[in-house]
């Protein structure tokens, strides 16, 4: 076992983990934050996307020990004081989901991307979300939601 210290959604967690524990399993099973989903389990689908030190990452392809010392944000960390993050609000208002399974990963990828590029074009949003798959093929409203969030955050 290895002792790690990870700050998740602003809260510091000290924990003992097996080196082979994947970050997504640490988040879901040890911290019981189950908003982060496991989809394809092969770094393709993006359902497990979180922010690691501010950048989007697929938590199924990171070892928990690699996150020692890192700041992690999961979908549970987006809202603050009961107010939704603009990206959450925009997904709600634009119906940026169908079954909802890919939604946490989509939103985390979007939050990471809008931090990098606050006023993207539609094409740029589509490219920025290429690492996130929606099995319902609901991409149109997802892209609309990210553009609406960008507008909201810029104004």
């Amino acid at each position, binding site marked *: 076992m290895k002792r790690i210290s990870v700050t998740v959604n602003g809260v510091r967690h000290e924990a003992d983990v097996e080196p082979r524990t994947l970050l997504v399993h640490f988040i879901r099973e040890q911290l019981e934050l189950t908003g982060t989903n496991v989809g394809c389990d*092969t770094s393709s689908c993006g359902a497990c996307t979180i922010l690691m030190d501010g950048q*989007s990452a697929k938590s199924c392809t*990171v*070892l928990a020990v690699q996150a*020692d010392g890192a700041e992690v944000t999961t979908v549970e960390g987006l809202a603050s004081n009961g107010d939704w993050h603009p990206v959450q609000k925009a997904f709600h208002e634009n119906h940026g989901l169908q079954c909802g399974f890919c939604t946490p990963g989509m939103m985390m*990828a979007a939050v990471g*991307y809008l931090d990098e590029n606050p006023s993207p074009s539609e094409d740029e949003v589509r490219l920025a979300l290429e*690492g996130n798959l929606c099995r319902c093929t609901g991409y149109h409203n997802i892209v609309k939601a990210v553009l609406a969030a960008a507008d909201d955050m810029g104004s």
Partner: protein
Amino acid sequence: MIPASFDYERASSLDEALSLLAAGGEDARPLAGGHSLLPLMRLRLARPSLLVDIGGIDELRGVRDDGDSVTIGALTTHHEVAGAAALTGGSGLIAKVAEGIGDPQVRHRGTLGGSVAHADPASDLPAALLALDAEVTLAGPGGTRSVAAADFFVGPFMSAADDGEIVTGVRVPKREGWGSAYQKFQRRAQDWAIVGVAAVVNWTDSGIAGAAIGLTNMGGTPLRAHAVEAALTGTSEKAQILAAVSKVSELETPPADENASSEYRLHLAQVLIARAVAEAAGCPGMQR
């Protein structure tokens, strides 16, 4: 899938990493971003006994402008490489390739050194390093050395790096004034290239004065299309270029798999070389 058990140590310096690897024996492996190694471990296709995490070694990170060449540290992520201002001229090829690897999440974590050390014949960076006559730098118990990209990739997932050695970076000649392009064909977004073509071209008023072509997934290692390069030199018209790209058939027969027959790969290579050369030359008359 969860990887088989392994020991894990985090190194805070290159020297410490080398000692840990030496002590760990032949089944010890360095871990950087883990975006090539962890997927293999999860499929149990790789079962290292010890991972030495080199991800926190700052001396292996960053892009340095050395005048006529650029040195890229092994831990520099694809995202950082894609945005590196020092990669000008022909060396801009490396940034273009990095920008197209995987997806944003993969580019945030995956590293140049990891991708190079992995030596996957279907990965994009090796062909680009080959086309630019780049050098791979290594550190090991016996000191440091550099190996030409042409000698580094020796087979599928096999490189000239010895057990206990760590890829510390690459040195890429800038080739100021040369243009570059990377064209890859894939069936779906994020797929490995069925064929990829890395081209650097020195386009002058009288046509192509020099060209270097690296090929992805046309063999067990990245390949240089030397016959095509020679045939391209001195050409300036589209018809001449199309004739030159047919020389790719002089290469050893490319592999066949569920995505493409050998004949199809050869066809793709010709189409993609022509496109890459036209793009790298930046000459509108040569575009399709």
